[in-house]
């Protein structure tokens, strides 16, 4: 009974933290992009604390727009939930949910800390960890396909077809790029990947893992529909892609799904390549303080990667669609395959133990 309660508490915490990061990373993105483009960005809405008699409010952090995510959420929820007459209603409703759910479920198997009072800081330490991640992530494409199709109009449909082709192509590169890691670790469990990295160096420290790391990073940009691969929402060509017909909270769900996917991809990258919750000179086992430190280390690495995602988005221009496909199939795929062989050779020679 107690174990079940602890599990539920962990699930609630993970959901809460992920959705909180999801809300605030949008704000961070807007502030950072404003900084890169030499603008101010959002700088008005604070968190409301108290309303005075004359109607003005005392707010907290208005200068950094700390209340912006809150207000954005209210705006999305209070807007008229308009459903165009020509859409296929059932699938039109189903699509945003299907987009959101895989992005959240992935967090079930990601170890976000070592332990806290003897409780492992992972929701479900399944035997087939990484396969679970890819299986669930591969379902995200249904949301996009159905959104494009059920909208029953030209541009969303083209956008949906286009982005699902992109997702399927890059999924293969993503999967192949991490195979060498599991050949070195000799387990599919994500906790053993982190454990391996606490005993050795981080996986990215070995030169033969640089190329897989690069392919993984680029493919996860493509998987999360982020620039330079944000073809699904090429405004000039598609008027916005698969979500053109959506408004209010249903549109916001797609938006949130993109950011949640981004957080999931970063968390996975941290776990696989950057040592998860471990850091040199920080003890691997210990009491509550060490446990909390591990969670903080994980979050710090996560935020660094998320910042990198945002930075890239506002720095690089968009790929053309044929370039995107060529890069995926003719460059990344052969390189990832070759990498499997290279690492197999490295293991055979005995450079990794």
């Amino acid at each position, binding site marked *: 009974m107690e174990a079940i309660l602890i599990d539920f508490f962990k699930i609630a915490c993970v959901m809460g933290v992920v959705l909180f990061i999801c809300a605030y990373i949008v704000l961070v993105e807007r502030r950072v992009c404003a900084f890169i483009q030499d603008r101010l960005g959002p700088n008005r809405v604070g968190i409301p604390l108290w309303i005075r008699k004359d109607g003005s409010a005392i707010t907290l952090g208005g200068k950094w727009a700390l209340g912006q995510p809150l207000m954005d959420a209210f705006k999305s929820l209070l807007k008229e939930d308009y459903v165009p007459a020509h859409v296929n209603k059932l*699938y039109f409703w189903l699509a945003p949910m299907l987009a959101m759910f895989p992005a959240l479920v992935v967090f079930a198997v990601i170890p976000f800390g070592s332990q806290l009072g003897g409780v492992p800081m992972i929701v479900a330490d399944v*035997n087939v960890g990484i396969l*679970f991640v*890819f299986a669930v992530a591969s379902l995200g494409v*249904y949301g996009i396909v159905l959104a494009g*199709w059920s909208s029953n109009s030209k541009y969303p449909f083209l956008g949906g*077809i286009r982005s699902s082709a992109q997702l399927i192509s890059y999924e293969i590169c993503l999967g192949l790029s991490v195979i060498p890691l599991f050949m070195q670790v000799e387990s599919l469990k994500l906790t053993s990947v982190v454990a391996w990295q606490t005993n050795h160096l981080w996986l990215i420290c070995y030169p033969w893992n640089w190329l897989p790391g690069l392919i993984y990073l680029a493919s996860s940009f493509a998987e999360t529909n982020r620039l330079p691969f944000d073809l699904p929402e090429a405004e000039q060509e598609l008027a916005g892609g698969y979500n053109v017909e959506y408004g209010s909270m249903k549109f916001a769900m797609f938006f949130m799904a993109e950011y949640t996917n981004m957080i999931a991809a970063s968390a996975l990258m941290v776990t696989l390549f950057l040592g998860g919750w471990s850091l040199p000179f920080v003890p691997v086992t210990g009491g509550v303080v060490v446990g909390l430190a591990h969670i903080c280390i994980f979050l710090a690495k996560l935020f660094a990667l998320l910042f990198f995602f945002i930075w890239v988005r506002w720095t690089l221009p968009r790929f053309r669609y044929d370039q995107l496909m060529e890069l995926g199939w003719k460059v990344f795929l052969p390189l990832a395959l070759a990498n499997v062989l290279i690492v197999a050779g490295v293991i055979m020679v005995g450079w990794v133990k």
Partner: protein
Amino acid sequence: MQDQLFWFFSIAMLLSGVLVVLGRNPVTSALFLVLSLFFMAGLFVLLEAYFLAIIQILVYAGAVIVLFLFVIMLLDLKTENVRQFKRFGAGGALLVAGALAWKLASVVMAMPAADAKPVVGTTEAMGKLLFTQYLLPFEVTSVLLLIAMVGVVSLSRKETK
């Protein structure tokens, strides 16, 4: 608990399988197929074949049915909504299905129940079996897939001079 789950997964799987056939909209059928694959994955989990369960979702739900959906959407099968019931076709289908079911049942009845050996570490065990005992069928299947792929590429290639 396990028994109830078994019945739940089996009934739900068969039900969504029936709905695949009965659905008038091809997209609905494809999605019910995904659902039925999910319940089948649930059955695999009950058998503690986690690897199979995950592969089931990864390969079928994640890739194959998505391609189905692709084709369905690109072909725009609106005419399927009005389909005619052909007495001859239905009779033939029933005949074939009945013959297959009878054959399958007779084989299943004739087979002695396999002695269940617990398998430890399903992924490793599976990999070892595939690369030792079943190496030839495994490689033949890969070559078969490769042939199909080369065939598709050469068929869909534009004529260039």
